[in-house]
């Protein structure tokens, strides 16, 4: 399938096109936050506390009189970067381990697979909680925790792909013509896994954003007054009765973000016909 054909097929599917448009809008919102946010997300106005929707504050204000819309717009920066960085950690480390295990086989493979099995035996959220538990609360530690959770998931898929690619004729031909391991891995093995890496990254983005928001919600991730979505939701609980809109808008935005990444992930998986086992 040529790339143009692929893009056309992807955009013709209304679900994947909607997911992509939403992701582009969210990224634009994060990048343009200083220009599009009507107020400073930290600026308090105690006279305007807990106001519902008004013409000045489109999504109302919170307990400290801060503009909810501005906080959500700035929050996209934190939530999307937590997702991006943790997926980056997981994909780089996981892909490296997966390629090493699959390509070299033998003892390297057995040791790595045993280590990955242990990590996989741990339910993801518990693993993330354990790591944050030992590293201490904070947004950077959450990125590491969520990243480590993704490592075995990437490694397993990439290892399986490498095992298949390793025995293909063109790789054997490259080996016979005297190519070194590094060249074979980067020129022949990794390109065969690009589709799987891309699909996994998309799915892991949604899980990472959700987990990071969950940890911040528990008070273990982003700390107040940082406008991270999970932290905003956590703060809104104390005024749930007086100002339910803060929870409702924030939750809708998190769900929308997760749904968008899942829609794009589903479409990519179907188009690439990748098995994610």
């Amino acid at each position, binding site marked *: 399938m040529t790339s143009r054909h692929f893009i056309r097929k992807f955009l013709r599917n209304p679900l994947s096109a909607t997911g992509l448009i939403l992701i582009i809008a969210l990224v634009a919102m994060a990048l343009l936050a200083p220009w599009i946010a009507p107020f400073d997300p930290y600026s308090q106005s105690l006279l305007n506390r807990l106001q519902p929707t008004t013409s000045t504050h489109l999504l109302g204000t919170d307990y400290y009189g801060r503009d909810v819309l501005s906080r959500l717009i700035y929050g996209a920066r934190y939530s999307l970067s937590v997702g991006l960085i943790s997926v980056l950690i997981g994909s780089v480390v996981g892909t490296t381990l997966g390629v090493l295990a699959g390509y070299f086989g033998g003892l390297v493979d057995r040791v790595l697979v045993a280590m990955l099995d242990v990590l996989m*035996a741990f*339910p993801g959220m*518990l693993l993330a909680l354990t790591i944050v538990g*030992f590293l201490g609360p904070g947004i950077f530690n959450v990125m590491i925790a969520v990243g480590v959770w993704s490592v075995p998931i990437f490694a397993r898929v990439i290892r399986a792909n490498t095992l298949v690619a390793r025995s293909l004729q063109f790789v054997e031909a490259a080996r016979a013509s005297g190519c070194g391991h590094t060249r074979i891995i980067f020129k022949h093995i990794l390109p065969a896994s690009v589709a799987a890496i891309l699909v996994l990254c998309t799915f892991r983005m*949604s899980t990472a954003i959700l987990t990071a928001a969950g940890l911040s919600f528990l008070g273990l991730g982003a700390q107040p007054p940082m406008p991270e979505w999970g932290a905003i939701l956590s703060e*809104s*609980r104390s005024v*749930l009765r007086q100002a*339910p809109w803060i929870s409702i808008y924030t939750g809708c935005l998190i*769900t929308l973000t997760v749904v968008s990444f899942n829609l794009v992930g589903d479409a990519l998986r179907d188009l690439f016909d990748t098995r994610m086992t």
Partner: protein
Amino acid sequence: MTVYAIRKVLIGIPVLIAVVTLVFLITRLTPGDPVRQLLPPDASEADVIQMRKYLGLDQSLPQQYFRYWERILHGDFGNSIRTRRPVWDELVSRIPYTAELALVAIILSALIGVPIGVYSAIRQNTVFDGVMRVAAFVGVSFPSFWLGTMLILLFALWLGWLPASGCDGPLWTLAGFRSVLLPALTLAIGSAASISRMTRSSMLEVIRQDYITVAKAKGLRESRVHWKHSLKNGFIPVLTLLGMQFGFLLGGAVIAETIFAWPGLGQLAVKAIMFRDYPLIQGIVFFFAASVVLVNLLVDLSYVFIDPRVTTS
């Protein structure tokens, strides 16, 4: 069967050993001196030495590791730094609450997910199937912490039907049952969505098989064909998922218990992390890992009863 069970147990043991080792290494290799973090900033050097000795951190790493195992095998997880009570006692007092919550949640998720999945498969490509597939898709994307908050808003604050937080008694009392419903539902919705998706795809494979056509041709009632023959044969992947959901539920329990002030292990875990109560964190992680290994073992063993084609040899 006994040999099969023993072999499965033996496979679970290395995983447990590795998890305990991992937890031990994370604690010991974490940057920063845990003793300094535990003590107030103005603590004297003598206090630091005494605390280090109390926690056994003055010994070499291998010595600490063997001592750690020796204590675990004797059921001694040390004392909580925050409450000074034995970690084991803290765990035992909280386990029934988390077990109750997880049990109700898994039953609810099966009760919601399995029938929707079966019905969606039987009525493939109808409006019901379409709506349920969208609902399941949104369900797996739904943040459980937000769902819990919304359930409180709707059922506790606006309608006033159910309590917003706490545990009001044992499950078999009306007050106790009412108080577990919202936290259990918070946990169950996400699982139910995954279960309905898995049941649907598993059933779709089974209902195309020849023996289902034969069963229908023999004149069996359609409901009997689907609920007895198809579901039983398509249940193995669903059961695996149910087992996997248990781990997911324990992770989710941390969030649900915090939202609903449910006095279980999850809430204890968050408090332990906040206070950097390492012995307690280790105990909780060990318990979680052990229960996940145990549930996976039970799921493996149950395959034999559900599907006789799974041999124990």
